[in-house]
């Protein structure tokens, strides 16, 4: 099962990818929003772990674009964000983000949220 990790920090991206690989997923990596969008459309992963702040397209712009495309509108998304304020969380929920992980984050907790989000999506 494929999971896409979109995060501009190579350190964080590799940490998350290693955790998800250990959980048994095939992990794709994107280092900016445009790459994330392209991979989500071409590879059709089971879930997207998405950083909110990224170059080229930020996390919210990626979510909007995915939700507007019928092929990716149902893709479950777990968003990584700086200590999230209420407005950010509400914006994300309105756009259809399944789970919010504020940074600093626990990779074990992220792993569990990814598993639950994929289960809820019935994939």
């Amino acid at each position, binding site marked *: 099962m494929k999971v896409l990790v979109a995060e501009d*920090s190579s350190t*964080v991206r*590799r*940490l998350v990818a290693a955790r998800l690989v250990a959980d048994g997923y095939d992990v794709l990596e994107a280092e900016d929003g445009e790459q994330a969008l392209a991979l989500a459309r071409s590879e059709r992963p089971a879930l997207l772990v998405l950083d909110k702040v990224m170059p080229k397209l930020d996390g919210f712009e990626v979510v909007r674009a995915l939700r507007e495309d019928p092929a990716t509108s149902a893709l479950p998304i777990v968003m990584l964000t700086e200590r999230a304020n209420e407005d950010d969380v509400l914006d994300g929920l309105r756009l259809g983000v399944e789970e919010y992980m504020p940074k*600093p*984050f*626990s*990779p*074990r*907790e992220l792993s569990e949220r990814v598993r639950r989000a994929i289960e809820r999506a019935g994939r």
Partner: protein
Amino acid sequence: MSGSLGGAVAGLAAAVALVAVAILGLRAAGSRRRRALARLRPAAELALAAVLASEAEPPQPVTRRERLVLADVALEALAELRGAEHGRLGELLARLGYVDEAAAALRARGRFRRRRAAELLALSGVAAAAPALRGGLDDCDALVRTICARGLAEIAGEPVGPIRRAVERDVAAVPGAAAAVVLALGAARPAELAELLGPDVEPRVRALALRVAGELRLSAHAPFLRAALADGGTVAASAARGAGLIGDVEAVAALEALVDGGTEPGLRVAAARALGSIGDPMSAPVLGRALGAQDWSVRSAAASALAQLGPPGIEALVQAPPIAQAQAKVALEG
């Protein structure tokens, strides 16, 4: 005469050329060093990621550059992580000797070296870093002191008194760093944040702590926030904001008094916003009166708050006085 002048000019030109060559040489060396470090980075990232995700063998950096890159990557990872992985990474750094190295570097002459060392010790979160961090509280550099205070704030069992004194000493010089200390304490040891909330605490530090208590929704500290509402200024404004974020219904009467009878626009705004967050419809009359305030920010805050109170709030907006028509329209359309 012209010969000696020509000689002087030639000498000066040679000196300038030598300096230019030296500068270019240093820049080239620096660029080569950065490229060499960048080449080492992916391997360090993968190695650390594997250690944290599984039981992989920890990396064993051999060269000075490898140790430097591994420390950089570990610092970045420590700042992004919490929980078990954060703890394991801190222990790994201690096992590889980084904590001892950083403790020694905290006594270096250069302040940038001491700041980096303090940052690694603070982020590591290991108890072994505590003695060096305590020593760093007496550093001559305000940033080193506050970084050390932040590290101690996250180590369970460390007394809050020295942390408080460090923040009170440096809150004026480095307010952002001081705020980071208070936030670290509130997040790691929420009950002990109480030691920064009392009336005897330096007002700027107290205002930060009240703000943190609200942002982190530490409802156990609601009595401190209520008590601070009477103090005026930024302390009361921070307390009002916090009370709103916590949703403290017991603070409603005090907040209404600040909106109705307050003279500081900033405080009236904070109190009005808090009443909107708490959402008690009985606050509608007070906020309705505030629609007639001379200060537009008070009118705007009152209008936004009324929009959050349901039918009584909407009714007050519909009947807003002429001076508040613009704010009421924005609030109704929101």
